[in-house]
């Protein structure tokens, strides 16, 4: 842990801030007629507003009503985090379960599942969201049973169904990665040793292989998060959830976007950092997520 490492780590969030700032002022560079240069004073004004976040107001683009940004912003914040949490837990748990089950099925399944998963992975996420909504409506029309809340309105938001829909793509990704890792781990000597000692296959997988695989999976967490955020945007939009990404989509004033984006991405960034530190402490390997 050298000094330059610490320096680099301190500098990294700063780069992220610069990136978010550039994105937040980007709409100022377009107008109805094309590209434009907003002028330095307009950009300076944005910076000044960002420095006083307590007094920020957001304007509803359709009704033109102005409201204070705080504390209303915490509502979409929790909505988004809970949807993402549900999706993450469901997808990881079901992928683990299914891949362990597949280990007991014949080897023929492996190739088939891998190729099907690769194809499903490339299908646009909109398709999954819309098809699941169609299925829900169809079930409702056929049976009259509304077994899950469908879209959010005001206070009563649907969280479970968006979470489940959001979990589809991470599930496919997890399943593919875990199956590939299992195949690699099986060739390791420790698996041979454990099997030759007479341990049950399930015990070898759950106790010994799983530990190694979870560490390797954690290396990919940044990619998984980025996949989920992009997916979350469309899920929240179509399920009419008042979530963070929809907030970012609808309220385009640069200072509001900047503050909300920071508020949303900071916990995710910190979470990634925590994973990085845990990985460093347990495996003594430097990773940059």
């Amino acid at each position, binding site marked *: 842990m050298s000094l330059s490492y610490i320096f680099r780590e301190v*500098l*990294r969030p700063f*780069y*992220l801030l*610069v*990136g*978010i700032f*550039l*994105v937040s002022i*980007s*709409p100022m*560079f*377009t*107008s*109805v*007629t*094309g*590209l434009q240069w907003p002028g330095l004073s307009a950009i300076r004004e944005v910076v000044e507003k960002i420095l006083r976040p307590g007094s920020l107001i957001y304007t509803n683009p359709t009704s033109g009503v102005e409201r204070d940004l705080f504390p209303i912003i915490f509502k979409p914040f929790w909505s988004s985090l809970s949807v993402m949490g549900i999706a993450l837990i469901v997808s990881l748990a079901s992928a683990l379960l299914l891949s362990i089950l597949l280990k007991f099925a014949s080897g023929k399944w492996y190739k088939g599942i891998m190729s099907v998963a690769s*194809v499903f992975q*490339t*299908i*646009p*996420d*909109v*398709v999954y969201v*819309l*098809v699941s*909504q*169609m299925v829900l*409506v*169809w079930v409702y*029309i056929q049976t009259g049973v509304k077994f899950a809340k469908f879209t959010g309105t005001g206070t009563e938001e649907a969280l479970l169904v968006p979470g489940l829909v959001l979990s589809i793509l991470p599930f496919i990704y997890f399943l593919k990665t875990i199956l590939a890792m299992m195949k690699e781990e099986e060739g390791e000597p420790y698996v041979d040793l454990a099997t030759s000692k007479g341990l049950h296959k399930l015990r070898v997988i759950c106790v010994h292989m799983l530990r190694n695989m979870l560490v390797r999976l954690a290396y990919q967490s*940044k*990619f998984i*998060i*980025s996949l989920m*955020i*992009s997916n979350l*945007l*469309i899920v929240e*939009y*179509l399920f009419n959830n008042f979530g963070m*990404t929809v907030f*970012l*989509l609808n309220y*385009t004033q640069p200072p509001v*976007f900047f503050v909300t*984006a920071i508020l949303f*991405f900071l916990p*995710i*960034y910190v979470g990634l950092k925590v994973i990085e530190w845990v990985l460093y402490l347990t495996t003594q390997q430097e990773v940059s997520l």
Partner: protein
Amino acid sequence: MKRIWKQPMFLLGFVFIMVMLIGSFVHAIFFDSIIPKTPFTYDENGQLEGAPPFAPFEHSFLGTDMAGNHLFFYILMGAKYTMLGTLAVAFLSFGLAFVIGIPLGFVQKAKFFQGFEQVISVMYFIPASLIAYKFLKPMMMEPYDGFPTTLAFRITIEVIVLALLLVPPAAILMANETSEILKKEYVTSSRVLGGRGWHLFKKHLTPQLKESWIRLLLMQSIQAVLILTHLGVFEMFFGGTRVFYGLGAEPPSPITFDWASIIGMYYDAIMTNMAWLIGVPLLFLVLFVLSLIAIANGIQKSVRASMPKKDQSSESLDVENADPSDEKWFELLKKDA
């Protein structure tokens, strides 16, 4: 390259894209992109028989919407914008990533590059479709007194912006792959023997990375489809959104009717029993993505097959009776040297 035409999957994908494109252009050039409309149908006695919406195969091939517009012709009309728009974004972003990424791989991680990579990593957190939506919104939504810009201008700007958004991750990937190859020992010996940039690129990078470039091009097109679909769902249609103002105005309508915008236009139909209005364009989008995958896989297979398995040219030479003056024994770097 000839065996590529013998692969069924490749052919299927290629035929699907070509048929849709040609059909779309024929529809545009000879039929002026007219959308047939069936407000009512009558039986042989002249009695009113049915009214729209018609389900697929009931009255027309893919059904109609509430007003009786035939969905099939919307699909046909939008095919060229969807496919050519996607491919334009993919090729432009791939080309830019190529021009930026490979020199970056040669430079081997300058200080500036690292900072740049960090700023770019914001793209992991903010989805590209969100950035594109915010950036393009002022230009793409029709203002009260009509668009001041032409359709071609808006499409060009949109393609460029989407391509630029897809460049950074691809460029970084290319730079990393390039510098990975350049670290290999045989490249070092090639450098020692005097190989410069262009030689290294042609003799060592291209053969090694050809397949990964095809993959990347496929990934870029899939990403482009994804972003265009997101934008379509957000009612920011490819080439601009026609917005109607005033009380009781119609919902926003697309201009180009690309497949993503048909989904966005009919989204409200999901709550009714007219699910085909969304299902059909979704199906075509999925078919398009699958065709792209099939084409990329086909090209990859034929590239792999055309690569020499083992260099046998030296074995066929007769070493015993070698004639040193024969040119095939020595490859001259410069003929006139």
